[in-house]
């Protein structure tokens, strides 16, 4: 009983927050509603037993993608009122896209009724592991069978990091940064001089 209630709660919340995401006038509010939609979708994933995908949704979509959206929306000066202008002009194109999507949905439902496509049978490693949570199953494969590829993927990330630094990092010579060690190493003797200037003459340092 409880999981039926939970399902309808999450489902209604997902649909409602998705609708508000596209309806809300303030883009920052849109992003916040989008985050709520992601959380509820993650809840639905937990209900179906795919807790790993639920974690991915929260970490990747909420943690990275949505926050990135938020940054873009807040940091860039985008005139959203102007973006919404021209509704009538773009209406035919929008209607066309909507029609294509509708046709795809009808086709998809029709294909679903006919039965599934003849796919290949998964070999030993791709078969579903019994009695293991899917996080544990993925982890066991990732750190044993696919260890080599996992490490190689790490090297790819390192290459990406080196690349980003090579292409963007600049040594700037026109800024005056604070060099604390140099400040501390300075002694009073070399910092001050005692001079007796003649009357009417300046001081050369």
């Amino acid at each position, binding site marked *: 009983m409880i999981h039926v209630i939970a399902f309808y709660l999450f489902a209604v919340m997902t649909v409602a927050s998705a609708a508000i995401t596209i309806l809300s006038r303030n883009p920052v509010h849109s992003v916040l509603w989008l985050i709520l939609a992601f959380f509820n979708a993650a809840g639905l994933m937990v209900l179906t037993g795919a807790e790993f995908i639920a974690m991915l949704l929260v970490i990747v979509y909420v943690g990275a993608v949505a926050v990135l959206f938020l940054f873009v929306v807040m940091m860039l000066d985008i005139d959203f009122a102007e973006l919404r202008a021209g509704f009538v002009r773009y209406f035919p194109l929008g209607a066309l896209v909507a029609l294509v999507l509708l046709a795809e949905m009808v086709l998809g439902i029709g294909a679903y009724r006919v039965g599934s496509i003849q796919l*290949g049978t998964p*070999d030993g*490693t791709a078969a579903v592991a019994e009695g293991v949570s899917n996080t544990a199953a993925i982890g066991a494969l990732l750190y044993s069978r696919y260890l*080599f*590829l996992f490490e*190689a993927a790490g*090297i790819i990330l390192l*290459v990406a990091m080196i690349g980003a630094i*090579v*292409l963007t990092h600049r040594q700037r010579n026109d800024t005056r940064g604070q060099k604390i060690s140099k400040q501390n190493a300075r002694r009073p003797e070399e910092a001050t001089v005692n001079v007796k200037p003649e009357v009417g003459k300046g001081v050369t340092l």
Partner: protein
Amino acid sequence: MDWSQSLRLIAPEETITVAGLVLLLVAAWGGDKASRLISILASVVLVGAMVLVAPALCGQAMGPETSAFFGQFKADAFASFAKILIYGSAVITLMLAPRYFERFNSMRAEFPLLVMFASVGMGMMVSATDLLTLYIGLEMMSLASYVMAAILRNDGRSAEAGLKYFVLGSLASGILLFGMSLTYGFAGSTSFAGISAGVSGGLSNGALFGIVFMLAGLAFKISAVPFHMWTPDVYEGAPTPVTTFFATAPKVAGLGLIMRVLLDAFGDQAAAWQQIIVFISLASIVVGALGAIGQKNIKRLMAYSSINNVGFILVGLATATQAGASGMLVYVTIYVAMSVAGFTAILMLKDENGNYVEDVPMLAGLSRTRPAIALALATVMFSLAGIPPLFGFWGKFVVFQAAVQADMLPLAFLGIAASVIGAFYYLKVVKVMYFDEPADVVKGESDIWHKAILTIACVFISPLGYLLTSWLGDTANKATTALFAAL
């Protein structure tokens, strides 16, 4: 599976990676001043990796004992052959690079590291016997390549080349991944052995689409028509040593990878992909030959020439026989030597202020001002055109021989006819250098290392190269026997 055996089989990759990580620390503390030292050490490591892979080639390693990590990686004779070419090209790039970049005051300590990591990725590509290894190796190579193309970041052309390569390369990766997911879905496995078993009863439409999309993604990486559009721009814009690298190592890796995918995973379904390869091959030959005719920039000309040559190499693949595969390896070896010689000669074309000359009309009368460079460039051009006394002819000969043996006469005839068109623009460069009034632009002095590399590469592609034909043929046969034994 035995972990220690697997770790032993990936020894070259481990060596380069660990050395790369150590040299990264040297680069972090030493800064760009240490770049020469890092280049030398990186070359030594890559030569060491060549020594590590050589025994597998000489001993003709094949079969299950060369398979590492549950069949994801294969260190057989075929992989060794390709790796020796790849690491060798990387070493040559490292030898060419410092002088070039120092001219622009932009030799970066990270450049040799990118070359090393790209070599690791390419090594994984030619050893891949699993779609995942294939993709990870390909991405490691590609990411490093995008950065290398854009490494002269203050130069507009270099930045443009990097961006174009990145955007189009990502698109190609996406297409490749789509093909891989279809193949996985319809064959039920990501390992090549599993795919081969999964499609043994004939290809379903889904798996056929999988092959087509995978081939589209891979054809991009070897710049085969119709996925060649990026090549002239990237080759022209990228710094010349980087272009040398692009024209050699990634081509070997991409071709090795395509051979593994088509001959291992889909070896029993040759009829399904042969016509695709025939089309790609002929289209590359024709577009490469016609596109080069109007080019004024010699690097763009070499880019079209590389498209053209990839077409000839793919003629060997279209036969789907061992003779064809062996011919491909022979051709690709000669092609690497021709590219190295060609681009090294281009690196030597400097005007009196030391600026690099890339325009073909500026080379007018080069035979009188710089006879040695003119002779080297003429050798390269004749060899690329496949004119008999030079070694470039032998590469074309072996692939066309394989095509004739496999009863693909129309393909062979069309290829030979198109190679005559190709000869036109190669000869045009020779004509400009030898028969036009001297433009008297090329005056700069060349580096001793560049001269040495150019001499060795030119001797290899000169008629003296024919002394190596039986040895090269035997070695290529050893490698392809290992490739076909995996079926």
